[in-house]
């Protein structure tokens, strides 16, 4: 029984592409668990897959492995790299990390059941790339004063008034930042086919002194640099308000495939 479990494999699915030419692209690629990358074809669609050992990717093993930083980094990167390699030359619908089926027949069934949704999603992202835009603020940095003896001496009414003024100033600065970020998103959206605003990553995770105030992604035509130029412009404009803008990508369209397929 134990030996049988150890030898068991599952079929890890990275994403879905148009079937034509995909098989050729998969040649020589290695993915998660350093396994070969192959294509399961059905009709005009192809699922990008690897056969993976279940002692690593099984139902019980996977949650455990995700807590292993080395394992997570290696395999998350492998998942992304495989998608990138396909995205460089064809439209790809990315699946979330860790989608695993028992055998190729189950993968074919997936392509059959959702053929129309996958086709629609491929059309939506074809010839387009995802760009990430983050905005950061060094909140409060210019206004902050060292707490010294003067502050300790301030008592009663003057102390409270001072605190109140500080709070009002902080609120005004916050409202101003919100306006800048909101306007930035609208300007970027105008240059994109589609856009999403995600929850900003907390400082505990980013490890940066600045606070993330925008975590957005935009879908743009591949090779179109107008959004990148706008981000540079926003960054220059935001300097006085203490807001910087950062561009990442191009990425496979992770943020732009849900709506068509993510329904049973």
């Amino acid at each position, binding site marked *: 029984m134990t030996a049988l479990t150890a030898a068991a494999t*599952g079929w890890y*699915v990275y*994403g879905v592409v148009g079937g034509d030419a995909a098989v050729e692209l998969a040649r*020589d*690629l*290695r993915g998660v668990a350093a396994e070969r990358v192959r294509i399961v074809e059905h009709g005009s669609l192809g699922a990008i897959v690897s056969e993976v050992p*279940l002692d690593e*990717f*099984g*139902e019980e093993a*996977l*949650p455990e492995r*995700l*807590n*292993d*930083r080395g394992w*997570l*980094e290696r395999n*998350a*990167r492998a*998942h*992304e*790299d495989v998608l*990138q*390699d396909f995205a*460089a030359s064809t439209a790809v*619908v*990315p*699946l*979330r*990390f*860790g*989608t*695993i*089926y*028992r055998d190729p027949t*189950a993968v074919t069934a*997936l392509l059959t059941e959702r053929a129309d949704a996958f086709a629609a*999603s491929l059309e939506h992202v074809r010839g387009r790339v995802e760009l*990430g835009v983050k905005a950061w603020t060094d909140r409060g940095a210019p206004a902050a004063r060292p707490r010294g003896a003067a502050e300790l001496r301030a008592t009663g009414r003057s102390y409270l008034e001072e605190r109140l003024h500080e709070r009002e100033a902080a609120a005004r600065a916050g409202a101003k930042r919100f306006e800048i970020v909101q306007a930035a998103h609208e300007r970027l959206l105008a240059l994109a086919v589609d856009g999403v605003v*995600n929850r900003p*990553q*907390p400082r*505990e*995770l*980013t490890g940066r002194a600045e606070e993330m105030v925008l975590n957005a992604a935009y879908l743009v035509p591949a090779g179109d640099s107008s959004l990148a130029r706008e981000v540079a412009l926003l960054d220059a404009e935001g300097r006085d308000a203490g807001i910087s803008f950062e561009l*990442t*990508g191009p*990425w496979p369209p*992770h*943020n732009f*495939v*849900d709506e068509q*397929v*993510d329904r049973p």
Partner: protein
Amino acid sequence: MSAVANRRPLEEQVTLLELVDRVLNKGIVLSGDITLSVAGVDLVYVGLRVLLASVGTFDRLANEGAS
């Protein structure tokens, strides 16, 4: 492998957080045969647990994520 040589330098610099935020948190969510029970879990928060120094921080983030 030739595929590795073709990858752009930018990817080499992509932080684990950037990567996890997309690879584990985005993309289409399908219930694979094997991952059926895992799919109920917010994978990104499972993954991010390893990036956090304290479990207390993780629990707070997980709660925020669930709300």
